[in-house]
């Protein structure tokens, strides 16, 4: 599945990182980096990340 983060909305709060550390990460400067191609087996973790994003910036396509 494809993960998309609207970086115009993202405020780098890092909540997604707690749900899936291997997919969402803050770099040393505190900016979000993420994997956009994610194996289907990780869907529930990514859905949790979608849920907990305060800016509702993450979507699954």
């Amino acid at each position: 599945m494809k993960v998309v983060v609207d970086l115009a909305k993202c405020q780098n709060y890092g909540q997604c990182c707690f749900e899936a550390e291997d997919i969402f990460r803050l770099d040393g400067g505190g900016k979000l980096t993420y994997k956009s191609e994610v194996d289907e087996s990780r869907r529930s973790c990514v859905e949790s990340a979608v849920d907990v994003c305060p800016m509702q910036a993450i979507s699954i396509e």
Partner: protein
Amino acid sequence: MSVVIVGGGLGALRTAESLIAAGYGGEVIVISDEKYLPYNRPPLSKEALKNGIATEALEFKRKSLGGSITWILGDGCASISFNGRTLTLASGREVAFDGVAIATGIRPRRLNVQGPLVGRHTLRTIDDAKSLRGAMLSARTLLVVGAGFIGCEVAATARSLGLSVKVAAIDEEPMIRPLGRDLASELRRRHEVKGVEFHLGLGIDAFLGDAIATGVRLSDGSEQYADVIVEAIGSLPNTEWLGGNGLDLSDGVMVDTSMRVIGTDFPAVAVGDIAKYPHQLFDATPRRIEHWNLPTETGRLAGKTLAALLAGEEPPHEPVNFIPTFWSDQYEYNIQSFGMPDIADNERLAFGSWDQSLVVEYLRGDELVGVVGIDSVPQLMPYRKLLMKRA
């Protein structure tokens, strides 16, 4: 089988999702006095207030679930009888049910002082925000009564729109309860640099004006006037409709650690801002906490609990391991917190410096109970795990 979820915010949505995911296959009816599907409230005092309120952009994504959800919008619940298994809507319509999730949240508290009610904006809903934004766009000056989260965020947004802004509050510093005196005083300094004028440590004796409020009289006798007045002095839980069912409604709805309502045998759960329960990572005292992440945490748990109760099974008994988390954007500053800084008795600067990016640790004795950072997310992240592991 039918479940009613009363309230239409984030907690209601997460409860519905969790209930269906837990295998409940009956009817789900969500009842809300607002006319909107569940939406994200934090932008209402920040970017949406500044740039415009587009309802669809604020709506939460709704998952395609196996079950079906019926939404009754714009018609709140006036009363409920657990014994009679019916509730009555404001319109008079009656709805029968076998289980209930209480998710009616909070409303702005109002000051009970002399003066007109008209012209005093509050901020909780999309409609509130539309009304406030409309007033701000044609105004030059704004007065915020109250110096909590909403008050500070509205002050910052109004400054960024070019309004001149005053804040009047009984508190001695802005956001003093979650931040403590030192950081709250630093927050005030940052607002003052941006041009906000504070009148703190003063009661509001009256609203001034004939038909429409145009100002306030403070307890030192001074009068402050503005084109727009915002009343942001905290909130009250919406529990009135629950009366007559034998529940403890003294401050929200008392629930156990599975979010099951205490005081009734009926299958009932409560979630989000209205639910009062012990946050077991910190202590055994039941608390109602209004932070954004908790409707999701409590809703996930409550859905499972309600599904189990309706199936005649034992609800899950997981310890409550939620870390209360808040964010607040004011100007270019990004404030974030984990834990319960408000229960601390001392605090220390752990990173950065007071007037730049920083992390403040909050301690009860020598035990870490919370942390607040400004522009320091990378430094803040490890604290969440520390707080998780402290139990």
